[in-house]
């Protein structure tokens, strides 16, 4: 009972501290809201249109074997697609006069990207020279997405144009293989194959790629978690460390002002006093995580997943945060030292554990490094739960983070026993 009296006093003290509440509740919610606003909900997300200037210097080429007929200008197909309605939300396109002026427009920050189609482009398509075979995407290097968007649009048109060339070349070679020797007939078959390619490519793709979510999530009818809720999880775990450190520091504070020594003179055993402190830290972070999860559900439209795994993760997270909070305090001599060193440790763990980036990266160095931290494992468990992962996929993250909690708790207890027992 005395354990709970001590815990209750610390719990009330923590939750009456406005600055502490700001760190525990307001900071994670504000940051998750800001990051949620940055990346939208996935289905209604749109970035600023890319300011694009197009210069088409292509002089065209007469169709193969038809020197007198009207020139084909393949570069026009690129400008046509860039100016089409289908990409109007992605790009704002302006026609440029010269390549030099277009480059200057990007250099001066008036455009993000310049698409420069060289004079010999059509010649290169028809295999009559290679000098003009390269369309240049001249871009502002500080931009990451916009130039890639323009590049993928232009590349798909160029691939279509080159496909027509490939069709013509294929038809010509095939005709020769079928013993057609008349050059005019070969040219005719090649031109018709190229025209047929353009028509077919525009009408319907032979192979289409459909993307969808895993069937288990779709069957259950669960919407995919939005960005804000994913960010909130990272922020929740990160700020739970700070939440645990606030009541944990009260041990040092009470030691400094003498109330801890006074407590030790009472018939209450020292272990019970420390246990009361431990319980208060655990309850403070447990309540903090429940409040944050409720805020996420009610205000951010988060869907946390099956209740069983969620409870397991909340309890596990509270244990990890409690143990870590107690360890950082157990080494320190003053509350100020505990605050500064603890903050540095938490920030470092948050950084390498992936709390600032969300949990969605599956491979690479980062995935290895994050597994060295308890919060990295907790985040992995949470990500599996919110995406509808099975219990079996959560055992490892839960057990590893629990093991971290036990080891950290043992270290903290050892140091506190040395100091106070």
């Amino acid at each position, binding site marked *: 009972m005395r354990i709970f009296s001590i815990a209750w006093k610390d719990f009330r003290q923590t939750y009456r*501290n*406005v*600055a502490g509440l*700001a760190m525990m509740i307001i*900071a994670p919610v504000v940051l998750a809201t*800001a990051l949620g606003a*940055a*990346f939208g909900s*996935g289905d209604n997300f*749109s*970035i600023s249109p890319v300011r694009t200037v197009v210069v088409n210097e292509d002089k065209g080429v007469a169709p193969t074997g038809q020197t007198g007929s009207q020139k084909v200008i393949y570069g026009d197909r690129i400008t046509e697609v860039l100016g089409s309605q289908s990409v109007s939300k992605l790009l704002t396109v302006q026609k440029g006069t010269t390549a030099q002026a277009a480059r200057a427009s990007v*250099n001066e920050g008036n455009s993000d990207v310049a698409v420069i189609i060289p004079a010999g*482009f059509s010649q290169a398509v028809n295999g009559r020279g290679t000098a003009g075979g*390269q369309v240049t*995407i001249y871009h*502002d290097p*500080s931009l*990451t*997405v916009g*130039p890639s968007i323009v590049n993928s649009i*232009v590349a*798909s048109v*160029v*691939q279509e144009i*080159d*496909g027509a060339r*490939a*069709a*013509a*070349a*294929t*038809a010509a070679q*095939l005709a020769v293989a*079928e013993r057609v020797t008349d050059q005019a007939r070969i040219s005719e*078959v090649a031109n*018709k*194959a190229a025209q*047929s*390619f353009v028509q077919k*490519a525009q009408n319907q*793709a*032979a*192979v289409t790629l*459909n*993307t*969808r979510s*895993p069937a*288990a999530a779709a069957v259950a009818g669960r919407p995919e978690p939005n960005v804000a809720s994913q960010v909130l999880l990272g922020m929740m775990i990160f700020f739970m460390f700070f939440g645990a450190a606030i009541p944990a520091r009260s041990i040092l504070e009470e030691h400094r002002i003498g109330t801890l020594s006074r407590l030790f003179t009472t018939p209450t055993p020292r272990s019970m006093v420390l246990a009361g402190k431990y319980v208060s830290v655990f309850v403070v972070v447990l309540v903090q995580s429940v409040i944050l999860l409720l805020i996420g559900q009610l205000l951010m439209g988060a869907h946390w997943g099956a209740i069983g795994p969620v409870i397991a993760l909340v309890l596990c997270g509270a244990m990890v945060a409690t143990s870590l909070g107690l360890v950082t305090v157990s080494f320190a001599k003053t509350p100020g030292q505990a605050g500064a060193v603890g*903050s*540095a440790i938490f*920030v470092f763990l948050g*950084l390498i554990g992936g709390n*600032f980036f969300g949990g969605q*990266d599956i*491979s690479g*160095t980062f995935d290895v490094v994050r597994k060295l931290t308890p919060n990295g494992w907790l985040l992995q468990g949470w*990500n*599996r739960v919110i*995406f509808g992962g099975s219990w079996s*996929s959560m055992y490892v993250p839960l057990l590893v983070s629990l093991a971290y909690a036990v080891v950290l708790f043992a270290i903290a207890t050892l140091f506190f026993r040395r100091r106070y027992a």
Partner: protein
Amino acid sequence: MKRTFYIAGKELLQIRRDRLAALFTIVVPVVFTLFLGLITGSMGASSRLPLAIADNDHTAASQQLVASLNKQQAIKTQTMTASSIETSVQDQKIAGGLIIPAGYGSSLAGGKPASLTLVRIQTSSGAQSVVETVQSVVVQTNATIIAASSAAEQVSAQTGRTADGSLLQKATGIAQSQVSAPSVTVAMVASNTNASRKITGFEQASSGEMLNFVLFALLTTAIGLVLERRTGLIKRLTAAGVRRSEIFGGKLLAMISIAFLQQLFLVLLGQLAFGVNYFNSPLALVVVIFSTSVLAASMGLLIASLFKSQQAVIATTVISAMLLAVLAGAWFPLDITSVAFSRVAHFLPGAWVIDSLHGIILKSWGITEVLAPMGFVWLWIVLFFGLAVWRFRPE
């Protein structure tokens, strides 16, 4: 004026003796820069994303598709059943799973469209890269199929030979070699470099973390101000004849100096250790980091003037620093964020600081280019400074 320098000197001495202040002023920003620079660099370079393939067709066409996917550098393929793909994607053991349906090859042979299914988690960044890679292979496959069928049809019409499987097969073989050796290509060239170039991990991390931690560097002085006010030290100073403006000026000068020195250190580190080209325009750089230092100092003083407890100052500084960084594009480039977010961010000063630093590093901006963004930053400085002066009380 002399007293202002004395007060600033005392603050700087205090910080120099405080090892914990060095932790957040120097150590943590360096660790963050190093880690983020390495991580964002390695994400794009070395990691191959796992893609599982369930080939339910087992025809030459499906095997050709799998062979094309195996050649892609961005992905690492593995074989899996369709049902295992569902659970493995769900549990995030793989970045995506491609299901080739039975009848894929016969549909294509019969001139009918075929569709592939890619299972992925929509919000996963790894999955986005996998979708792009598979899509590029699909585009190439389409080009080959259409080129082959167009050629076979025309040759058949011209020679009178039946457009049967063998003719189409022959055409496909030729079309594959033609499509894989394109005569026209697309090249990306970054402005001012005449080479393919994108912002690197260290260029983003170095400038971003400089802004992220500039407010943290001022915590010691801000907390000191709160403590001095609470213990009556500032009141005692005013009683001794030191003017309010001298106390305020001393604190401000100390904060500007700390922030400037911190940024100078991080600039040198970025330039010399991480190859970030800050020295493209030293004068523009000095203008930017000086303006950022004054901005941070004004914000720090405002926070210290508004709150009465240490904890409140720490909490507000941490939240403000993180928000300033998020809204400035210090954690991620603003051009990948939503339209509204990007616009709101440019109403705040941080985004203009980052824009200017990126301009200097990547576009060789000089003094004339940074003047306009810094002018906007100074509007905020005036606002923060005015509020700080208004709220500053010695008691």
